[in-house]
């Protein structure tokens, strides 16, 4: 198949390398260096999709990031990605793409019926049409909108591509490699500054690739190539193509998305698909250029209507003619440049210029080439449905209000130029309050907000000579401040054709009796009439008009539509454009793939996984793990076909009857050292700490200043000025910060140091009536008798040559000990415990059995210390000192905290002694009471009591103190259960606590 619209020579594509690709199932070929858009156009394909609302046929409008139409679903290497701009997607061998937003096919689209119903889909249609009747919403409106709306389809498969994040620092970050970007980068690099130059396209050079200019006696394109080649050799310069700086954040942090592999058939091994760069720049130079804006006329969305600059780019970069009978419609000299290119390649264009008598070097050149030029002429409407077939044109009066006689002329494309809009997005994102520049009818950056400088066309300078002069100077001056070097760079001489003043004209009036749609926003199908309706209905603020009409809200963020929308509002409102003001630009400048944003933090990499030194042993012994914060802990050790319930019951029972061992390495551990350590503990914990002797442990509760329990744990006095504090697994980091806060800010006079030692110690809890016998075997040289090591005692022992800390503390409520050794010996310790425990029928137990044991003992844990309870609620008021002051004490006097019927922990048993109560169930007096049924409390934790062999739960219950013996209902709407229950004491087993002291 031949490429009917590819010229024989010219363009920057590699004609040696043909690439085949498929679009909507049909095979084509293009060349290396093509985009999907240029390759389709080379094959004469203009119809690429359907519009968002009316499903009108859509073609190509631009040639890059500003493209509002040509959005495709891409298939690459077994994966699919939606919403790819065909104008940005580089062609690769085997590329496959499909149109979006059309069904069953782009040529015959059912949704196009909306086009004939468009009277029912005016501005604000989402708000109005679908409001009534309510029942229609679910059955008719919502399914309709869902089918009609949306662009591509996201893949439901796991994304196998890899995305990387990179952090970088530089002196100057330069966004855009057009003339101003290149010049400033070169000048700054010569001064030794660390420069990053980013270009979103594959090729460097920006407008120099397509403009007919000379710099330093070379063509603009050659000059750019020379400069880039030199910049790439400089060690202080990073040059990146395919890299879009899309966000300008606080403190000169910019984010750039680098397409590493999108242009390849598949991602190379060890390469990411995309790389997201977080760049902290001392100075930012914005050389993002400008985007041509359309002139609005009837049916201006017909495929074949496109920006004149895009037509020129397709020709000069890709060697592709967008048409063979082009009509150029312009209000400035840029249209002539496109016409001249057509003419040079043997195609005869017709130029319609809205101006009466423009004169310039460019126009002279066009005249000399014999180009047919019609002055004071406009395109009234494009004709043709799936492709431009002809144009209705007419002369226009000097006041631009009256059209002359309408003629129809044949053409196959209409190239529009309504002058240029500086790309001010990044400056605006940085906080720069932009200002309106009358001479160019557009906004430009105002006073810099952060360390940002906008150069060239982005700052409204359209002359190349001035652009280069200011950019070289800015590059030198700004880098000089940083590097203190001043290496002069000669500014090359420039040959460019002078152009004449553009015409402010932007919208062609409707001819009498015609009601053509004149589109402002091509992606969201917002027409002139929609904005008129919004204003008629009383919307005034441009932000409101935007949201009501969805003007500029599509994925292209109105790159081609914003200014014309403002022009329209200002005309109707009889205000000047700056008074209307533009809507705020927010990052991202262009859509960024979610994969790039997430980076490598997916699946198991989304958070770190911490494992205890005994992890491998647990794995080998069929542990089933559970996530406990970032820790992996054994939940139970599976024997045969046991399930969680059976295994945890067996493990808990074995603790109550023999001895069990549990990995408690995950508990937070903090070393508290210094002469004032006791004083700190005394202020942090609710109970008294000044008289704790060396070699003793104490249980403590700490509060926040608002009186709520923050954490609990035991702290042991290792030596005179050295304490070993333990925290819950979940609160370890918060408790350390809490202690540091008070030591550094509130009581700096205390001479204490705190440091986390969680990772330094491996811990094993040995619990059960036979634990002392086992301990004696493990530490034959230590006196571990009830006298030698009483409850809450502490010893240092020798575990077969390894130094160990032995704490007699208990979470299970049984006679129990906790042994700590340095982490590296954790596995050694564990294996010794298992080896010597064999004769006592030892079994390891996991977190499920651990919970069972503590729940039936009425020991509180995270589910009770949930950030909403005070000590009294947890039956811990005995630990609250009346004598001394401590953090949060004053708050306990608050009236709600001292109320007679204050909530309090209780035990809950189902009346049938069989039905387990789901955690989170509400306790109510009458389950049939009308809603809202007053909630008296909630179930905080549930277990199967191994002591009594029936379900048992803990609950936080209003007036819990006086509720023991009451019968209530536990209701779980989630589990659809209502369970009659009796309230009992929270200390269900061994209420006097005799076992721990035995």
């Amino acid at each position, binding site marked *: 198949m031949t490429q009917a619209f590819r010229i024989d020579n010219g363009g920057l594509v590699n004609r040696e390398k043909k690439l085949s690709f498929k679009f909507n199932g049909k095979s084509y070929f293009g060349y290396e260096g093509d985009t999907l858009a240029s390759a389709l156009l080379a094959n004469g394909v203009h119809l690429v999709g359907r519009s968002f609302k009316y499903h009108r046929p859509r073609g190509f409008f631009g040639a890059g990031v500003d493209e509002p139409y040509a959005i495709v679903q891409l298939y690459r290497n077994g994966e699919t990605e939606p919403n790819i701009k065909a104008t940005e997607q580089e062609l690769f061998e085997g590329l496959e793409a499909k149109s979006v937003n059309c069904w069953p096919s782009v040529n015959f689209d059912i949704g196009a019926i909306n086009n004939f119903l468009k009277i029912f889909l005016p501005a604000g249609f989402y708000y109005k049409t679908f409001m009534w009747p309510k029942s229609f919403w679910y059955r008719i409106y919502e399914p309709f909108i869902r089918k009609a709306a949306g662009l591509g389809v996201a893949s439901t498969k796991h994304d196998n591509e890899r995305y990387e994040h990179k952090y970088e620092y530089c002196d100057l970050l330069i966004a855009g490699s057009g003339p101003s970007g290149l010049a400033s980068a070169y000048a700054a690099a010569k001064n030794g500054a660390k420069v990053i130059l980013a270009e979103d396209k594959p090729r460097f050079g920006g407008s120099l690739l397509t403009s007919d200019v000379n710099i330093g006696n070379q063509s603009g394109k050659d000059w750019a190539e020379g400069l880039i080649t030199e910049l790439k050799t400089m060690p202080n310069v990073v040059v990146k193509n395919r890299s879009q700086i899309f966000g300008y954040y*606080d*403190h000169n942090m910019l984010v750039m998305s680098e397409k590493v592999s999108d242009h390849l058939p598949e991602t190379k091994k060890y390469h990411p698909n995309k790389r997201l760069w977080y760049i*902290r720049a001392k100075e930012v130079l914005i050389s993002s250029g400008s985007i041509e804006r359309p002139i609005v006329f009837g049916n201006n969305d017909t495929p074949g209507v496109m920006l004149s600059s895009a037509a020129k780019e397709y020709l000069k970069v890709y060697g592709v003619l967008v048409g063979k009978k082009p009509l150029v419609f312009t209000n400035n000299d840029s249209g002539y440049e496109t016409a001249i290119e057509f003419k040079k390649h043997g195609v005869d264009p017709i130029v319609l210029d809205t101006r009466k008598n423009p004169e310039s070097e460019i126009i002279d050149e066009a005249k000399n080439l014999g180009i047919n030029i019609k002055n004071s002429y406009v395109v009234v409407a494009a004709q043709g449905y799936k492709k431009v077939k002809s144009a209705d044109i007419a002369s226009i009066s000097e006041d631009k209000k009256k059209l002359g006689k309408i003629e129809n002329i044949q053409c196959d494309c209409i190239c529009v130029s309504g002058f240029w809009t500086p790309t001010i997005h990044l400056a605006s994102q940085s*906080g720069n309050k932009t200002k309106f520049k009358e001479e160019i009818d557009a906004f430009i950056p105002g006073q810099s907000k952060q360390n940002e400088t906008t150069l060239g066309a982005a700052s409204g300078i359209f002359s190349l000579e001035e652009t280069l002069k200011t950019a070289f100077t800015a590059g030198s001056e700004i880098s000089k401040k940083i590097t203190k070097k001043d290496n002069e760079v000669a500014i090359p001489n420039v040959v460019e054709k002078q152009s004449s003043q553009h015409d402010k004209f932007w919208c062609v009036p409707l001819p009498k009796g015609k009601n053509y749609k004149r589109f402002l926003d091509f992606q969201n199908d917002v027409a002139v009439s929609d904005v008129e309706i919004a204003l008629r209905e009383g919307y005034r603020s441009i932000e409101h008009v935007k949201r009501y009409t969805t003007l500029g809200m599509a994925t292209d963020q109105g790159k081609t539509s914003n200014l014309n929308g403002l022009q329209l509002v200002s005309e109707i409102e009889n205000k000047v454009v700056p008074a209307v003001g533009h809507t705020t630009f927010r990052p991202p400048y262009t859509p960024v793939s979610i994969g790039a944003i997430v980076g490598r933090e997916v699946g198991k990499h989304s958070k770190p996984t911490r494992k205890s030194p005994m992890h491998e042993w647990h794995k080998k012994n069929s542990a089933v793990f559970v996530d406990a914060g970032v820790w992996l802990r054994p939940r139970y050790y599976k024997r045969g076909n046991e399930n969680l319930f059976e295994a945890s019951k067996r493990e808990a029972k074995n603790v109550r009857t023999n001895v069990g061992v549990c990995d408690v390495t995950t508990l937070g551990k903090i070393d508290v050292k210094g002469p004032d350590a006791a004083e700190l503990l005394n202020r942090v914990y609710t109970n008294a700490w000044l008289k704790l002797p060396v070699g003793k442990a104490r249980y403590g509760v700490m509060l926040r*200043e*608002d009186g709520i329990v923050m954490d609990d744990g035991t702290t042991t006095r290792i030596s005179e000025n050295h304490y070993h504090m333990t925290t819950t697994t979940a609160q370890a980091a918060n408790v350390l910060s809490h202690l540091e*806060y008070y030591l*550094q800010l509130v009581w700096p006079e205390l001479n204490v140091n705190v440091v986390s030692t969680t990772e330094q110690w491996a811990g094993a809890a040995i619990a059960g009536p036979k634990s002392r016998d086992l301990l004696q075997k493990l530490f034959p040289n230590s006196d571990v008798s009830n006298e030698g090591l009483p409850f809450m005692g502490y010893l240092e022992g020798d575990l077969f040559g390894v130094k160990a800390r032995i704490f007699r503390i208990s979470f299970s409520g049984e006679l129990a000990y906790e042994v700590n050794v340095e982490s590296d010996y954790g596995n050694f310790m564990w294996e010794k415990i298992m080896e010597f425990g064999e004769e006592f029928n030892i079994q390891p137990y996991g977190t499920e059995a651990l919970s069972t044991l503590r729940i039936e003992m009425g020991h509180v844990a995270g589910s009770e210390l949930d950030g909403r309870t005070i000590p009294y609620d947890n039956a811990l008021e005995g630990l609250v000192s009346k004598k001394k*002051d401590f953090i949060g004490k004053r708050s306990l006097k608050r009236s709600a905290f001292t109320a007679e019927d204050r909530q309090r922990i209780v035990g809950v048993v189902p009346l049938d002694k069989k039905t387990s109560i789901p955690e989170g169930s509400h306790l109510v007096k009458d389950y049939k009471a009308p809603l809202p049924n007053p909630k008296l409390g909630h179930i905080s934790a549930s277990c199967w009591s191994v002591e009594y062999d029936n379900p048992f739960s803990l609950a936080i219950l209003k007036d819990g103190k006086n509720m023991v013996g009451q019968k209530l209902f536990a209701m779980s709407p989630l589990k659809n259960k209502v369970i009659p229950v009796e309230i009992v004491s929270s200390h269900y087993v061994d209420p006097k606590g005799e076992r721990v002291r035995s």
Partner: protein
Amino acid sequence: MLYINCPHCGMRSQNEFSYGGDASVKRPELNKEVSDQEWDDFVYNRKSLRGKHLELWQHISGCRQWIKVERDTATHEIFRTFKADEEVA
């Protein structure tokens, strides 16, 4: 992302820090009788002002020091940073 000058470590990105609230709040001394109003002001009541604000940050993934940061809450401009024990003039 803010760029915060830790007085101990130098310029560091915001994601190394955690926010600690208004630095001008003074905890009432221990063992001192305080009225409900005074206590509420200390625990709960904050001005949440727009503009220059002296606030606490902890360099949690760095030196773990609590520092004071003078920041504009509207523009995020950071004017000065101080060590915990430094007097703010």
